[in-house]
């Protein structure tokens, strides 16, 4: 039987994140400006085209670079244009440099954004606002995001992270004495939705076995809790920054064959 219509799952991520961006900006004006997000996307795509062509002799699929650029454009908050351009450039270049046995170790935008937050605290911060004052945009994005990561077989990662976060928020609340609702507040914001749907699910930078994916994302949430107890504002990004590469490195060491079958899988998101 021939398929009348086929859809490349690699477009799901870009479509979802673009939809989120447009809806959020038209509704709440979350962007600093189109020029900054546009710059981040343009730099990411240009860098991917150049590095991919020179390194592999062919132009790569641009879904990944697009998501990297748009993630940087949404997440980074800075009055300076260089912050957007450099975050995108660092993100893309890191894919080509920080590799082990043929795999890049860091989720690109996680690396680029975390590096800038760490190196430029006075001039760069992160999207840290909420979805307006009503519940519906958040619900829509949660449902849409869940459907899409389910379609590409990654819902278990997102769900485990959310469950772990909620569990650890109770622990944090008990330890700090802060109201539980304060501890759980960050997950109601758009920053976390990008993190949950586009970063922790990235197939290129997650381990292969399903059970190991659950363990790793649980550890990410645990490290995040530790960082939050140390009052690190950007705890989820730093937690993924620390745990993700270590888990990939260990998996590569243990693997009999360096090539993962999933490395060419359709990706919901390669941020």
């Amino acid at each position, binding site marked *: 039987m021939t398929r009348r219509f086929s859809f490349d799952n690699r477009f799901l991520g870009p479509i979802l994140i673009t939809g989120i961006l447009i809806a959020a900006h038209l509704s709440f004006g979350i962007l600093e400006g189109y020029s900054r997000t546009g710059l981040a996307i343009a730099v990411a795509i240009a860098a991917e085209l150049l590095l991919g062509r020179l390194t592999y002799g062919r132009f790569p699929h641009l879904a990944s670079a697009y998501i990297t650029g748009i993630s940087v454009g949404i997440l980074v908050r800075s009055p300076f244009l260089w912050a957007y351009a450099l975050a995108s450039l660092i993100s893309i270049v890191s894919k080509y*440099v920080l590799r082990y046995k043929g795999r890049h170790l860091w989720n690109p935008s996680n690396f680029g954004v975390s590096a800038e937050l760490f190196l430029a605290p006075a001039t760069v911060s992160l999207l840290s606002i909420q979805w307006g004052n009503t519940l519906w945009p958040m619900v829509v994005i949660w449902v849409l995001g869940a459907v899409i990561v389910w379609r590409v077989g990654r819902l278990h990662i997102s769900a485990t992270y959310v469950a772990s976060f909620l569990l650890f928020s109770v622990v944090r609340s008990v330890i700090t004495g802060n109201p539980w*609702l304060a501890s759980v507040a960050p997950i*109601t*914001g758009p*920053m976390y939705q990008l993190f949950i749907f586009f970063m922790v699910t990235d197939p290129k930078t997650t381990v292969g076995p399903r059970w190991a994916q659950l363990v790793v994302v649980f550890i990410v949430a645990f490290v995040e809790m530790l960082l939050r107890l140390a009052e690190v*504002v950007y705890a989820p990004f730093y937690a993924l920054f620390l745990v993700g590469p270590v888990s990939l490195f260990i998996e590569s060491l243990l693997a009999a064959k360096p090539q993962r079958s999933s490395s060419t899988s359709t990706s919901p998101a390669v941020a």
Partner: protein
Amino acid sequence: MNVHLRQRALWLVWSVVLLASLAAVVVLNRRASAGSVAGVASGFSRTDNRTDGLARFGFTLDESAKRLGVDALHQGPTFDAQLEHIMPQVASMGAAVAVADFDRDGWPDFYVTSSGEGSLNHLYRNQGDGTFKDVAGAMGVADVNREGTGVSMGAVWGDYDNDGFDDLFLYKYGRPELFHNDAGRGFTPVGEKAGLPRWVNANAAVWFDYDRDGRLDLFLAGYWSEDVDLWHLKTTRIMPESFEYAENGGRKYLFHNLGDGRFEETALKLGLTSRRWTLAAAAADLAGTGYPDLFLANDYGIPQLYRNQGGKGFVEAGRDAGVALTPKSGMNAAFGDIFNDGRLSIYKTNISEPGVLVQANDLWVPKKGSTGEYEDLASSLGVDLGGWSWGAQFGDLNNDGTLDLYLTNGYVSAGERSSYWYDFAVIATGHSAIIGDAKNWPAMRGRSLSGYQRKRVWMNDGLGRFTDVAQVVGVTDTFDGRAVALADLSNTGVLDVIVANQRGPLLVYKNRVQPGRHWIAFELEGRASNRSAIGARVELQWGGRTQVQEVSGGSGFSAQNDRRLHYGLGASTAVERVSIRWPSGRHQTIDHPRIDALTRIVEPE
């Protein structure tokens, strides 16, 4: 070259690119965060610094409050016990200062608020001999924070009855009051007769004649909703429903002056329907229509620019103008012709905390050739990063002919080694169901929130760049600053700076300008226009330069500069022309006015 070698060579190249990019981030961050900051050479004593400032920048500022006889110490309020865990931040405003020559003796005086229950406000009368005397008690404007009436948040001067003496409007978290100035001999509360509301939780007010009928009207902006009594909470769901999109703040009031001591409230009728959390307001003719527009700096959201529709109403045009696209935490509204080309830019302060939140302050400059559109040039000009910024005012501090910018900052200075920022950032991201309820907010427990911050004194080089010279010219305090007001307190042709600090002392920075720099100042009095001449637009032409200023009925944060307009002239020894557009619409031109002098100008009949 074989493939393997080529791959390795490319990997090396990309590694260098990555390292270079990371290094660039570090360098650019350092450069941007330092901005243009004038350094203090190591080993300099404070006196040396001031000498250095005089030589390098043409002026120094010397904190002189005690020497001048000014001893005001702001006290903060204590609200309902249900807010105890976050009291330092919810009770974090109320230090204000407003300048006027209330007794018309030719010397600027100033009114200073306190916000502790039962604490006294101050009215410092300028004795003309370099000292001030607090006459608030004798004048009847000191004991205004009595229990049950709320506490002071700020005040603005304006001659609402055109009798020649500036009256005083006091806004509070509580019952606002209008004090009639009895010919400089005392004040009589007339708020009830005027028709003021029973309770408003306000942080901003502005006198302006929006319909140009010759009588001053009054804009009053609520912050907390007016149905909230912060001392007797019925619910803890009083907080902003969002950190960026809150519209559950206080309503706005526009009191139209009926001319018989009464005011008619017309805000909703004329389109001022905002319920945003307004912290600052200022009025000026931004569109060149002859009618004053209104700019509101709002906490937890976008600012608002209300275009005046010929005195018949207001239309919100912030989005079209480009100033209301990004929600921030607005805390200041001030106007200044920073390029000496007749365009009034708008300076709005926001929050910048390294490592957490970099909103950056906004400097909205009118686009050349556009019809009312603005672009933010704060970063380009170097006036973007000012910490948790509060009040700021434009003024030519060194008389070089360009407007400089004084900014104060700092939110809550408590434990020096502990910060509330993490908890604040966490709750700020929460959904309205979480952030909107005070009981969900983590306790502050004696921690600071952007405390002990260094102030900014940005010198305008006239070429599109501002340099922070605060430390060099002598502004070294780290109090939690709120209001800034500028005035030539000693009538010597230099602008002094008065700073009201939350739970701290009032500071008076006396200015000393390098000899050889000239100036000119004007005191305007309306006739067909309102007597205070608020809204008069004065264009000065000298030495090929042009600078526009407007007489203001309140600007900055909880502040009002002296209404006398001061212009630095640099080395110029002559002024070609001064052109005045009075609020009534009349135009007046004076050729070759006398420089190095204050000229009093009465509106021609």
